């Protein structure tokens, strides 16, 4: 799959995702389908799918204790132990997992290879490279904050933390464009900008970095484009093509209270936004996006390095055929005796003399 085909395929897939509700609601007025059936179906697929996937992973046992040790082991009191990168106890593992999940600690280690030749001789350097870490962090946190902010649409009254978050996120009080500011257009959320920026970077680096381009699949471009479309429709709705927020909230609250309604007067842009997020969450269980759950099960990260201290049990451990000492001595007994090595059974004298002659 060449990268051009991969990108085109993913791009058109997202175009379809946008076109379906556009036609469905804009032309055919299938508001019940796109406002209620699709979101519920997507949520069902998401929850059931994720649970099935996690159960499926968990069904396979962890036969061996194989943490990747990234620091000094616990040995003597006078040697400083790295309890996060080489955990000995469950607490250490909790810390390691916490930093892995919350700060992307492993990705923070990232470096970039700098390969040169000086007068024919290779010269290798490992350069500072935190951009991937930064973009990944910004993307995930922005998405998370935006998700939380959306609770002001789902809940009545709006929870206090959402109001605070809203304030913080908008604290720059910038207008989307200088001339629009002050004309009733809401101020810009920082996370909106960061999300789009981070996504763009993640896409551009897939194209720009030779090795990453070479390994990228449509499955890598598709979620990027889909989330870009999601963000783009959201931004459009907030700043440019305003929709009836009260009606949207009626629909959203209805969905969450299981009393779904499809009020009149919501622009088609909203249904496109809703269909994008529905597609995204329905796509989750079938895709690499499952890494959000997989990280918690990763045996190189979620196990302590204590297999010399406490026996780790392999549930399918089975007896194997070994070459016993008796078989070994039977083969080499004469030679061993001759070399003065102790043996369990003395050789028969006739055999020994026979050997010697």
């Amino acid at each position: 799959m060449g990268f051009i085909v991969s990108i085109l395929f993913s791009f058109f897939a997202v175009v379809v995702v946008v076109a379906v509700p556009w036609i469905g609601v804009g032309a055919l007025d299938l508001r019940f389908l796109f406002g209620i059936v699709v979101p519920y179906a997507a949520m069902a697929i998401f929850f059931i799918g994720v649970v099935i996937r996690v159960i499926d992973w968990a069904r396979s046992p962890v036969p061996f204790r194989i943490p990747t040790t990234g620091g000094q082991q616990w040995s003597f009191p006078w040697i400083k132990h790295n309890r996060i990168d080489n955990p000995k106890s469950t607490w250490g593992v909790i810390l390691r997992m916490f930093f892995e999940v919350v700060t992307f600690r492993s990705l923070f280690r990232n470096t970039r290879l700098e390969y040169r030749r000086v007068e024919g001789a290779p010269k290798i350097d490992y350069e500072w490279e935190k951009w991937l870490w930064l973009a990944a962090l910004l993307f995930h946190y922005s998405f998370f904050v935006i998700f939380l902010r959306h609770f002001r649409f789902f809940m009545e009254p709006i929870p206090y933390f959402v109001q605070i978050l809203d304030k913080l996120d908008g604290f720059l009080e910038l207008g989307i464009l200088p001339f629009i500011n002050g004309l009733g257009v809401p101020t810009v959320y920082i996370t909106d900008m960061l999300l789009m920026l981070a996504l763009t970077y993640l896409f551009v680096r897939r194209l720009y970095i030779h090795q990453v381009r070479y390994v990228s699949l449509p499955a890598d471009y598709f979620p990027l484009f889909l989330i870009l479309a999601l963000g783009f429709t959201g931004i459009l709705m907030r700043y440019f093509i305003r929709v009836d927020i009260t009606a949207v909230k009626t629909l959203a609250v209805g969905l969450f209270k299981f009393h779904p309604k499809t009020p009149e007067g919501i622009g088609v842009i909203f249904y496109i936004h809703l269909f994008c997020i529905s597609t995204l969450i329905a796509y989750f269980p079938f895709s690499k996006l499952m890494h959000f759950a997989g990280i918690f099960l990763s045996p190189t990260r979620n196990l302590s390095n204590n297999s010399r201290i406490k026996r780790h049990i392999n549930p399918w451990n089975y007896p194997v055929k070994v070459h016993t000492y008796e078989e070994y001595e039977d083969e080499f007994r004469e030679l061993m005796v001759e070399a003065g090595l102790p043996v369990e059974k003395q050789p028969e004298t006739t055999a020994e003399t026979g050997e010697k002659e």
Partner: protein
Amino acid sequence: MADVPKPEELAQIDHRPPVFRPWIDSPVEMRKGIYCYGAKGKNLAVVDMPNARDWNPADEDWKLPENWEDIIKEGMSDRLDRFRSFKLFMDICVRCGACADKCHFFIGSGDPKNMPVLRAELLRSVYRRYHTLGGKIFGKLAGARDLTEDVLKEWWYYLYQCTECRRCSLFCPYGIDTAEVTIIGRELTNLLGLNTDWIQAPVANCYRTGNHLGIQPHAYKDMIDFFVDEIEEVTGVRVNPSFNRKGAEILFITPSGDVFADPGTYTCMGYLMLFHYLESMGLDITWSTYASEGGNFGYFTSHEMAKRLNAKMYAEAKRLGVKWILGGECGHMWRVINQYMDTFNGPADFLEEPVSPITGTKFENGKSTKMVHITEFTADLIRHNKLNLDPSRNDNLVVTFHDSCNPARGMGLFEEPRYVIKSVCNNFYEMPPETIREQTFCCGSGAGLNAGENMELRMRGGLPRANAVKYVHEKYGVNMMACICAIDRAVLPTLMEYWVPEVQITGVHELVANALILEGEKERTTNLRGEPLPGMEEEEDV
């Protein structure tokens, strides 16, 4: 080395993969100098492994069993059910590329299929085809492909170009461990009798004679006796090791490489001298000819084979009635001991929790496996001032330390060897931080790749390590690299000769032995290698 390109030629590496030709449409091209010879039938048969026959990877026909596709597919399903690691690592990669330029084989070869992500994708593509909905429906669009003979050959070529060093796994945000993928991938190839002979012959030897090199018991003793003579020549002291001795307190197991070839032999002499020194202080230790191998080439074959070879350690400890086991300087031996042994062949309830007979220190980090690493043992001795050392005898050396991958990323043994080295040497310098400790680079020849016919691959894979050595050689005049791995000691001299000829290789206990002042020793004029000690160059000439 005749066939290996010169360093200047080999250094012409392009790390940019082709722009337009996708990897999935680029069939494998097996190059001589990169792969090892195929496993011989007799070596497969000794351990009852399937499809035992002679075969040649260069041939079109690999003499596969008729139903080989079914064997692989079933083998894969079976392992997905048995290893959460494998299942998870097939599913959650996002191809962020953080691992891509971390692999020493990619850095040294530029071959894109040596990027850890792509090495795993070679298997994932087949996994998707038979185990995921997307792969079944969308095929290539979902990054899936059929299992064909070409695919199998590609697997083989690249699975035996990975040293299972786990450097990529350190950088992966989800902890995806290519070593795990390689280990299981190799298990699959072994279902069809597709091992390399450089792995399979040691496995067969180890099974029968107790060690990889096939040294028979009397010869093993002969070789150690030879070291005893050598030690006497250098120090004037005659050491007296014992073998297969029942009732000893401690069983000592080290890789047979240390008994067989320089410079590992000097490390072996180091063990012998240390044990002799401690004898009068209460050390009661024996060697074994049956468990005469610390290393485990079975681990490069399959989990089962690893377990079968590893079983000898506990079996011999039990037979001899020792209290605990001391392990020598070896890399993957310690990955197996630390992360597998007790699970494979434990519980070792017939042994006692290890205690140093000299210092009384309880080795609590080994209380279940009942095994202690010799640098832990020696570091504890030095810490308690039990060793009479003269580090100036190593003053002609400017030393650096190569963290072997397995004790580094499969154990976390960083400070103990450094503490020992710094106690016995006055000149010690670290290589750059991106190349040591948990970020250490592989020697390029681990996991059974230390053959002769794949020398080009080895020189390529060892390039990042060599580059770091060169840096400290030029900056600080480093002329000796210490390590705690027998494969390192076997392969790094060749690597250094190729890239940084001024630097030699040593085990940590060779350095210890040179500094160790034995009771009743004569005035030493040379080190264990027979080279004059600092300040003794004159005496040598007389």
